[in-house]
């Protein structure tokens, strides 16, 4: 670790992993509820489990992004963080707010929670992924602004590189587009239209900048390839991401009451969205092939390459599968969406955070890389989680295709629940694969406690 203040990243990463574990546990509960409908009812109804599952995902990724920013921005700017104390204070505020929100979901009926937290003053709750009570939303804004102030001051006074500028821009975009979560018009079409300005412009817009910056940072470190080369490719890749992704928002505007020309605009532009992901894969493999050093942290290299491949598969390929309007007409709102969502979030965002953690955690703990033994275990965890996610995606895709056939295409269309019963086998297989994923995650966590002799560069 080059700068003392980079150490604030550590609690962020630990919290991220902890919340990740929680996310997966609730995922397993939901997976079981898909086939054993009354499991844990009425203690944890499906909607509550899902809210916890998706909100934990968002929060742990945000923890991961923030930790990554606090680590890489001082290093790139070549100076200490403007205020490590502020960063640490924000950590606790965010953690407490996040935990309180999750407990609120679990312990209080949602309608009561809404009443208690001022939803009648400004109604923002009850929309997918934006279920957080008003104080939590305000808290997110405050934490994000404090972080942006802290990071911007650091960059302003320090060296400006493509990586820290892109990272900062991504985080600013994240905060700015989140503001649309406060806009909830009664007109459902408008509500949905601007809801996507948070959701889509996050995951297929500014988050890709954050992801690109993190990946580029780690690649520079573990391959020793010239910064100039990595940075110019970073710019080209994220340029492609925004060129395709901004108008690609249109692929959400096919069937929600918006004008029908979006079917053309959305299809054409989102058909190009796999390109930046493909470039990212080529980029990661190319840089590793051109490496000038053998970094002792081979696990981090594996995560970096894995991110490239899985982001392309999950976001690129599975996104493309159902993005064209004539296809989406049948797949919209089916298990196909769930399949894409799982692999894309894991492949692009979960994995890039884990890449960053894998590279930085040993350094934060005072060594260049973990012991060989710990790394082998981490790589096992990588393969278990990644392969499990591939199969979860395949099973959900199979379930989706069957569901669409029975419910939307067959001459005698089946009702929703009747069709669900027919695809139960795939839900069972998904749940079992989910347990494999959980095993991988457990192994991942255990790998942090494995001792042994520090790995050296070969």
């Amino acid at each position, binding site marked *: 670790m080059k700068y003392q203040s980079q150490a604030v990243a550590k609690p962020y990463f630990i919290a991220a992993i902890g919340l990740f574990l929680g996310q997966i546990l609730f995922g397993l509960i*939901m997976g079981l509820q898909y086939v054993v*409908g*009354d499991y844990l009812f009425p203690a944890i109804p499906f909607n509550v489990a899902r809210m916890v599952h998706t909100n934990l995902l968002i929060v742990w990724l945000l923890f991961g992004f923030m930790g990554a920013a606090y680590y890489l921005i001082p290093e790139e700017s070549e100076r200490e963080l403007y205020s490590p104390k502020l960063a640490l204070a924000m950590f606790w505020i965010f953690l407490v707010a996040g935990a309180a929100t999750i407990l609120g979901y679990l312990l209080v009926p949602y*309608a009561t929670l809404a009443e208690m937290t001022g939803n009648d003053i400004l109604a923002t*709750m009850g929309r997918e992924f934006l279920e957080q009570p008003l104080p939590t939303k305000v808290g997110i804004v405050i934490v994000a602004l404090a972080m942006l102030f802290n990071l911007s001051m650091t960059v302003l006074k320090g060296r400006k590189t493509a990586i820290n500028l892109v990272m900062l821009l991504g985080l600013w975009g994240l905060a700015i587009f989140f503001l649309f979560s406060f806009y909830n018009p009664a007109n459902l079409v408008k509500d949905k239209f601007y809801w996507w300005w948070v959701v889509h412009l996050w995951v297929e817009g500014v988050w890709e900048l954050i992801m690109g910056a993190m990946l580029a940072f780690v690649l520079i470190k573990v391959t020793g390839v010239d910064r100039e080369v990595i940075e110019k490719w970073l710019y080209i890749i994220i340029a492609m991401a925004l060129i395709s992704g901004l108008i690609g928002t249109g692929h959400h505007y096919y069937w929600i*009451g*918006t*004008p029908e020309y979006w079917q053309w605009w959305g299809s054409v532009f989102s058909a190009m969205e796999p390109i930046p992901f493909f470039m990212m894969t080529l980029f990661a493999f190319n840089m590793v092939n051109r490496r000038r050093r053998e970094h002792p942290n081979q696990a981090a290299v594996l995560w970096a390459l894995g991110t490239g491949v899985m982001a392309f598969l999950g976001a690129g390929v599975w996104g493309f599968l159902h993005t064209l309007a004539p296809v989406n007409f049948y797949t919209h709102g089916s298990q196909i969406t769930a399949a894409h969502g799982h692999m894309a979030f894991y492949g692009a965002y979960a994995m890039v955070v884990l890449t960053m953690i894998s590279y930085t955690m040993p350094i934060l703990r005072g060594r260049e890389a973990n012991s060989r033994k710990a790394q082998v275990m981490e790589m096992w965890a990588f393969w278990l989680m990644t392969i499990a996610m591939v199969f979860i995606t395949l099973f959900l895709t199979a379930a989706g295709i069957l569901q669409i056939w029975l419910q939307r295409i067959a001459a005698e*269309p089946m009702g929703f629940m009747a069709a669900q019963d027919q695809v139960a086998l795939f839900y069972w297989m998904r749940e079992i694969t989910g347990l494999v994923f959980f095993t991988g995650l457990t192994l991942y966590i255990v790998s942090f406690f494995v001792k042994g002799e520090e790995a050296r560069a070969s």
Partner: protein
Amino acid sequence: MSSAFTKSAARNIFYGGAVFFFLLLVGLSFDTMQTLPKRDNRENLNESAIRGKHIWETRNCIGCHTLLGEGAYFAPELGNVYTRRGPDFIKAWIQSQPTGVPGRRQMPNFNLTDAQLDDLVEFFKYTAGIDTAKWPPNIEG
């Protein structure tokens, strides 16, 4: 200096491209807002339907159901439920939850009053009237 590949050019492409396509998105969004009155069924968005949307949100219905295809995929699509089931069925169904059938998916009982049920139904009536370009493919959603 032919066929150079410089970081500054790459950076300019990024910033220029981002601004350009964001402006295009803003332009298309502007046109969308102009066109919406013809499609979004706002004439039927009365006070009751607005209250209904509030009930929809504060009971976190989206946590299990889809609405115009967006939401969770655990329970049926409700954007067209008004057309599929009609008002009386919807009210009776909500009131009779949970079914308590062992092993089946359960919906909580939200203890809604008759007035609240009417508002919710009014909201579904409004959503069913939105021009969704003929989606879903059939009545089953």
